[in-house]
């Protein structure tokens, strides 16, 4: 078992190449630029294409073209660039084309800053583009998972013929950790639906336009059925010390790692705490949350955003238990002590609304 000490942003590129991805189209942006730079180094070595596009709009459309031509392809960016890609993502999903998009989230809205946040949840998980579509979203919390989930993203993208997004915060993108890469590379699966420039695929049609209402509705139903299948089988999560937990914390990405330590420390103090970490953000592991809601007394959701994933938790819990929410933003990351303090409070009165201004408190009311 050989491990390599590597940055999250670089691990993505190596994993993509091992997964049979042969083209990368991207535009630099902090804190995702290392992905573009690593792609510039590795893709030519693997006989693949690297192109620095003139913008993220161009990147996603190059990906659109490469995917239609039957190639495993990808791009990477951060919030502002992902915003620009939304039109293309909608067309890719509408045309049922697989591709992988990596979002290393930074602070927003607008220019915000380049520090880590989790505030792209809405635009990535709920779909920032127009129309009825879904994207598969994977949320790594370590450099090893940057490798593993990128690999998986390519498979899921192909399985469902749909864009898959690997979304993480700037921390996981920038940090270095030992990673064990797969020792064998795979080839992209055959794509009989693509337009491959041969006689067999001449009649294939890749499109998202259906002018007649009936045809478009039928297309939407077909997509829905596909999403329903993914929604009932692809959910991934980590449940840590949740079996007897009375307070279950929920967080993804960097937050889940801090929460894990806080949970251990709370346990030492005799508080029955646990951690539930969604690994797929779509499909969201709502059924599992529903199940643990049977025995836990309350939930505590922590996000580096002012409350985006918490909506999905609340839907899953469906009012059966209090869902407390704690947030940091602007690139601030809570310390273990800070989260432990919150955990203690939640375990005592099982409801806190920390860091929420009065108007937001109204909004987040029970």
């Amino acid at each position: 078992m050989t491990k390599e000490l590597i940055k999250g942003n670089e691990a993505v590129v190596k994993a993509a190449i091992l997964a049979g991805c042969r083209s990368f189209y991207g535009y630099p942006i902090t804190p995702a630029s290392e992905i573009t730079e690593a792609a510039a180094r590795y893709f030519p070595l693997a006989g693949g294409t690297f192109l620095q596009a003139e913008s993220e709009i161009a990147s996603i459309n190059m990906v659109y073209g490469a995917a239609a031509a039957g190639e495993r392809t990808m791009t990477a960016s951060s919030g502002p660039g992902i915003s620009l890609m939304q039109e293309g993502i909608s067309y890719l999903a509408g045309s049922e084309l697989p591709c992988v998009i990596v979002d290393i989230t930074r602070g927003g809205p607008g220019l915000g800053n380049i520090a880590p946040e989790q505030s792209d949840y809405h635009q990535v998980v709920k779909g920032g583009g127009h129309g009825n579509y879904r994207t598969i979203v994977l949320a790594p919390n370590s450099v090893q998972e940057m490798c593993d989930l990128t690999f998986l993203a390519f498979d899921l993208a192909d399985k469902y013929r749909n864009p898959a997004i690997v979304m993480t915060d700037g921390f996981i993108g920038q940090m270095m950790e030992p990673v064990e890469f797969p020792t064998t590379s795979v080839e992209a699966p055959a794509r009989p639906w693509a337009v491959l420039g041969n006689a067999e695929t001449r009649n294939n049609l890749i499109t998202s336009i259906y002018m007649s209402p009936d045809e478009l509705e039928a297309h939407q139903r077909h997509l829905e059925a596909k999403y329903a299948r993914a929604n009932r089988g692809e959910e991934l999560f980590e449940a840590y010390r949740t079996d007897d937990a009375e307070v279950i914390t929920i967080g993804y990405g960097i937050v889940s790692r801090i929460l894990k330590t806080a949970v251990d420390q709370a346990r030492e103090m005799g508080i029955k705490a646990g951690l539930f970490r969604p690994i797929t953000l779509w499909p969201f592991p709502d059924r599992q949350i529903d199940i643990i809601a049977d025995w836990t007394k309350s939930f505590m959701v922590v996000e580096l955003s002012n409350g985006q994933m918490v909506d999905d938790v609340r839907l899953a819990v469906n009012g059966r238990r209090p869902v407390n929410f704690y947030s940091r933003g602007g690139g601030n990351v809570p310390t273990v002590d800070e989260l432990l303090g919150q955990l203690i409070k939640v375990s005592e009165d099982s409801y806190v609304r920390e860091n929420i201004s009065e108007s937001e408190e109204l909004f987040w009311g029970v």
Partner: protein
Amino acid sequence: MSHSGFNDSAEKDHMSEIAHTTDGANGEGQTAVKLTRKDFQTDQEVRWCPGCGDYSILAQVQKVMPELGIPRENIVFISGIGCSSRFPYYMNTYGFHTIHGRAPAFATGVKLANPKLQVWVITGDGDALSIGGNHFIHALRRNIDLKIILFNNRIYGLTKGQYSPTSELGKKNKSAPMGTIDYPINPLSMAFAAEATFVARSMDIDPKHLSTMIERLAHHKGSGFLEVYQNCNIFNDGTFKSFNEREVRDDRMIYLENGKPLLFGKNKDKGIHIDKVKPEIVAIGENGVTIDDILVHDENALEPNLSYILGRMQFPEYPVPMGVFRAVHKPTYEQMLHGQVSKSISISGAGDIEKLINAGETWEIN
């Protein structure tokens, strides 16, 4: 960011001297305002790397501004994103730090909302020519009175050294480890193609020339474009060195002067001769060449063809031209817009908005 960088006390000192004017942002009809270079400086810490060419451009703009006699509140600097785009923070005028590539569009909105403002756009080679390429073209094409300065360092500075649309073919950098295979674009060619009515070029290390060009740009009415060769000493040091260093400049650069023959060299004994469309370097006194064979520069020519040819001259084949390539007058967009508004009012009379909107075929439902 949008800010009024006015420094309170300085503002008060000058209020008495600033007579309020509303017409013309270019100096006409303005009561003289006695400001100094210092009045255009801000208390913001300048965050460019020591030795960066941007400092020189800032200094020259701050030197020219007081000479224009325009009150600071009638001036606005608008930028996109990049090192160059930090410029508005350092100007004690109104300023907007907007979206990567979008400054020309933003500036269009500002200028049309408030035509009395003198509107400057500060942009970089990536900002203007890659992600913002289309906005750049269309702002120039419309002949809106915008003063666009492009800091061309042939690199993405802010994101730490990836190639830009002006990077030389084959240049090695972070996103092109084996050298770029993207043919560079010539910003001047683009400006000509977009029918800019003022096109000029200067460089950071010739402050005298630079300030003259800034002044010319300031006085032009219509879409003006100034390219400034700017050294990024951190990520692309010396990119213009081969021709613009003091010791070689005389022989490798040529300063355009309106109505004068295109001469260069220490003794001004070399010149540009054009036969048909290809320029040629000739030596006066050799092979019967006289001053009459030298092309006379005409920046006011309505057809930009000759200027376009000059704009494409590159070292080492040719001396690199600096100066005003084109300065022609056409009605500006805002003048024509205003013309149409006045015309409709003169035809139908100044009216009542509610009456106008309700003047169509309306009916009442009882």
